């Protein structure tokens, strides 16, 4: 234990004395949040939607057909009542729900005004805005073509857009979870892989392995400081989001920190795995950049909506760990979901940890022999 404590102390000294490391650890999260506070627009195809048809007449069915044949939407399910709205969103299958009021056709033909509600999941602000615009456009089109078929047709379809979870449509809501994933990945995976390969490169790993320190003490000692660092980063990102951009934390902070720690451990195990493969710091850095950072930015749904990707990329995004973490953070922060709604993603994250730790141990054993 004394040995281990001395080792962790040494690791902290390494970190505090390297100004570049400190810069990445402290300044990076702040800068990233400010940069990604901007909205990055994107186009959408095949977004999954739900329909709550309280009227079930010919007109609503026709409108539904029209919406679904546009190519922008894919019907996930018909809802039976308003009670199902919340679950449809929280299980995250649905980006938008279209609600037709009761007696829709009757209102359209006799009262000249029929109401539709477009409820979007605005924790993903871009997608929400684009989806509601598309749907409104299609419905307006539909309204005009119907007016043309009846004499003196001047009926209105009145669309009311409602944003769930993020009424003001702030883009930064979307970027906070993404930045958290990215920073944790960077701090944990990249920094540890570099710090372990550094010892290999300078030959001190050899000295440590010959010493009475056990290999697992060396590895755990290496990653311990980064768990702290990552936790501090998580808190500072949340604080920035909360006080600067007013991003809410609707769910339990404890659960959120638990998931963040889980993801940190996952990233650390990835970093350890990279260090068993990489020969020197350069290789470790490039592997972290290309194998971790780019997919985290491009394929995790951080910037580009996953439902908009071509099929092969959508498949690949499944094996990108940050994707699942981002889903979890969005659900907890913006929708106030509890563990009941995120257990599946949590299990996936745990699965990744087991996988990478297993691979590292296997690789390490081969190398020592």
């Amino acid at each position, binding site marked *: 234990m*004394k*040995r281990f*404590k*001395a*080792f962790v*102390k*040494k690791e902290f*000294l*390494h970190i505090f*004395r*390297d100004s570049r490391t400190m810069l990445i650890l402290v300044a990076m999260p702040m800068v990233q949040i400010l940069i990604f506070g901007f909205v990055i627009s994107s186009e959408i195809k095949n977004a999954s939607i739900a329909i709550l048809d309280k009227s079930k007449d010919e007109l609503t069915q026709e409108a539904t057909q029209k919406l679904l044949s546009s190519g922008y939407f894919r019907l996930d399910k018909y809802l039976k009542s308003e009670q199902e709205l919340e679950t449809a969103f929280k299980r995250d299958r649905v980006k938008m729900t279209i609600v037709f009021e009761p007696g829709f056709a009757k209102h359209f033909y006799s009262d000249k005004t029929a109401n539709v509600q477009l409820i979007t999941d605005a924790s993903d602000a871009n997608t929400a805005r684009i989806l509601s615009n598309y749907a409104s456009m299609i419905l307006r089109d539909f309204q005009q073509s119907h007016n043309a078929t009846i004499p003196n047709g001047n009926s209105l379809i009145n669309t009311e857009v409602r944003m769930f979870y993020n009424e003001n449509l702030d883009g930064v809501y979307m970027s906070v979870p993404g930045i958290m994933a990215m920073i944790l990945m960077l701090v944990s995976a990249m920094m540890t892989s570099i710090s372990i390969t550094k010892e290999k490169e*300078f*030959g*001190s790993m*050899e*000295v*440590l*392995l*010959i*010493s*009475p*320190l*056990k290999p697992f003490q060396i590895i755990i000692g290496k990653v311990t400081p980064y768990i702290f660092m990552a936790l501090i980063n998580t808190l500072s990102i949340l604080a920035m989001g909360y006080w600067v951009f007013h991003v809410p934390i609707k769910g339990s902070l404890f659960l959120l920190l638990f998931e963040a720690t889980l993801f940190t451990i996952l990233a650390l195990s990835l970093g350890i795995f990279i260090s068993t493969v990489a020969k020197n710091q350069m290789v470790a850095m490039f592997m972290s950049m290309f194998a971790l950072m780019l997919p985290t930015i491009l394929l995790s749904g951080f910037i580009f909506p996953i439902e908009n990707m071509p099929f092969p990329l959508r498949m690949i995004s499944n094996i990108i760990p940050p994707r699942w973490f981002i889903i979890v953070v969005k659900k907890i922060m913006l929708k106030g979901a509890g563990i009941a709604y995120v257990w599946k993603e949590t299990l996936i994250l745990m699965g990744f940890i087991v996988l990478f730790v297993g691979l590292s141990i296997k690789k390490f054993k081969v190398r*020592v*022999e």
Partner: protein
Amino acid sequence: MHNQSHEINSTEPIIKVDKLVKRFGNFEANKSLCFHVDKGEIFGFLGANGAGKTTAMRILSGLSKPTSGEVWVAGFNVNTHPESIKKNIGYMSQKFSLFEDLTIWENMRFFSAVYSMSKKQFKERGQELLQELGIWEERNRMVHDLSLGWKQKLAFTVAIMHKPAIVFLDEPTSGVDPITRRQFWEMIYEASAEGITVFVTTHYMDEAEYCNRVSIMVDGRIDALDTPENLKKQFNALNMNEVFIKLARPAVNSSQ
């Protein structure tokens, strides 16, 4: 933990190697090595690059296990008690590996904790060693500010700080100037006088002359083992350089 070490008495060798074989797939890196090293001895472990020195040294220091054969170091069997061996040896790598961004004192304190020295022991021993070296006043300097020669001396000091039974030196003088090398050998003699056994590899044949006994590995075998004097007689050579060249020339694997 496992203190089944039989007491090492002065007559018993501190390193005993009996028919040590290490195989990697089809390649035999160590072909049935047999030798011993006495307590307090300075033992030169020579051989061309690729002759199997590193493999043997990794086994002696408890890092890897022999494919077959018996190896005893400081009274412990490498197969059963590698952890006990690790506590009783010191190691200095050819890269003089210290932590560059820590001070001299911090480096020493770290390794003192790794080798379970008490704070008091460390303070006394650390001060004594640094004063001998004449850098006690400099103890708060960062290692990356030191010259290569000082790094070398410091790496050696760290390796013997906990008074190990044996210190393994892996090409400890590569890249330093002749004067520093000479000073370094004086430090080795001092350590040996303290009772620390020195196990050293080198490519400098003049250094081989400083050893009590020298072994020369060729293609995974030990082809010669004796005092420098006897080796020179045996191979009818003027110096160790000639001995080495006569032995190593016919080697197959060594030119990689």
